[in-house]
């Protein structure tokens, strides 16, 4: 079960990781080996087996539609890398 360098780059883009060339090389090898190991799940014929949706047999857990206190602004921005006024600032999206 090998994974190609191109696939690694594609996955890195999906995962939002700017990998260095070295990292891409290393991950291509490591992921290949790991996928080989975990790929044994393919040897089971499981067409009739339902996937586990949840480890706990519980349904209908919800909260009532009653407002709670929101965070004070000091807390909202306590860890913010970049704040402008009462907004979070990020570089342009395009």
């Amino acid at each position, binding site marked *: 079960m090998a994974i190609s360098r191109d696939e690694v780059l*594609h996955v890195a883009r999906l995962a939002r990781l700017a990998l260095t060339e070295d990292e891409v090389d290393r991950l291509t090898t490591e992921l290949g080996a790991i996928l080989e190991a975990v790929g044994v799940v393919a040897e089971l014929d499981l067409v009739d087996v339902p996937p586990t949706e949840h480890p*706990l047999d519980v349904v*209908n857990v919800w909260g009532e539609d009653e407002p709670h206190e*929101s965070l004070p602004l000091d807390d909202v921005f306590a860890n913010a890398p970049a704040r402008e006024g009462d907004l*979070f600032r*990020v570089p*342009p999206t395009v």
Partner: protein
Amino acid sequence: MSAWEPVVGLEIHVHLKTRTKMFCRCPVGFGAGENTQTCPVCLGLPGALPVINRRAVEWTIKLGLALGCEIRGHAVFARKHYPYPDLPKGYQISQYDLPSCVDGKVILPSADGDREIGIVRAHLEEDAAKTVHVGGRTGRIGGADYSLIDFNRGGTPLVEIVTAPDIRSADEAKRFLQLLRQTIVELGISDAEMEKGALRADANVSVRPAGSNELRTRTELKNMNSFTFIARGIEAEVERQVGVWESGGEVRQETYDFDAASGKLTPRRAKEEADDYRYFPEPDLVPVEPPAELVERLRGELPEPPGARIERLEGTLGLERSSVLVTGGLDRLWEETVAAGAEPVQAANVIANALMGAGVDPGSVSATELARLVDARDRIPRAAFDEAVSKLGEPGFSADPYLTQEAVSDESELEPVIARVLEANPGEVEAYRGGKDGLLGFFVGQVMKETQGKANPRVVSELVKAKLSA
């Protein structure tokens, strides 16, 4: 053009007007200070976990029932991953392959009989936060210097409704949306105001040779924020696609953004990479399995659907008038006004035109007083009628002072005015005599103007007609 048939499906997002957000108990509402309605959950802080809003689930089921859907006994929230700063967790929680409501249909009364619009699904999800792009030449995303994020809107509950590609014209899309909007408003689950973004519609549009069953490549029109724009956008896109096919070209799968400022559809820049949402069941939540009693209770709370009411009124008022009354939320007032003695068509016209034109809240109007005004409409001066209508919503309004005023019906008083008007508009007179009957209203209007609205328009109309046919 007639050789081609438009095939349109809609995806509609509706903001539910719950008090709190979908997965946290931050309050929902406009006007609060930026980022003041946020908490660890809707900011996506490490370790925060979602908790489903029970009311949002119940309202979604209710809407599903109103749309004739099957309510699934087992619905599951999933994570939909895509990268954008307005999505604090990096994924949106949304029902995916197991939505709450499936397989519904809406009857849309139409000129050529009932049309059935299929509802593929209605599911619950959370909205993204608001991003403001700052700086740059145009102030639009492409040229922005940076962006600012307000998470107040992030995590508010949305229902997404997906129709089957059953819609066959721009007008039909518009009428369907108006009916849907009214259905939602009457359920009391959303204000569904498009201007405020509480109801947003995207359209999937393709065309095919009329009479065929094929489905050709479709394009997606996004972010259209009014019924008129939706109809216009679809119409333009249908025309464009027909042009492409007829000139031997091929329609490409594309997404267009509607720009409210220019009123134009512009193609979105193609992404380098196709979307890959990597859906999987949200492990932080458990399935929703609404008990049958709950579904039945909600079914029992449904009001008579607006589509059925349009059909009921159609015999008396015609499709157009009854649609306007019902989708405008005016039919109850109309019914009461008619019950109070008003002539049905007159009452419909007054409510749909004069009352709405004056911006009066129909909920505050006394049907009895309105009925008296409708009845006296031709008898009292137009100016008095208009003023009375504009005050109908005021508490304790009485039609009495207006009903004592009489419109001028005296022929000897009116005839000199009419003569003056006809003399001043010889071209129109000639055209009328040549068969343009529609100009009658023009003459009447001129006379009304000359008399400052005091003339009885019905009498004027009779006199003008007599004079010109002489």
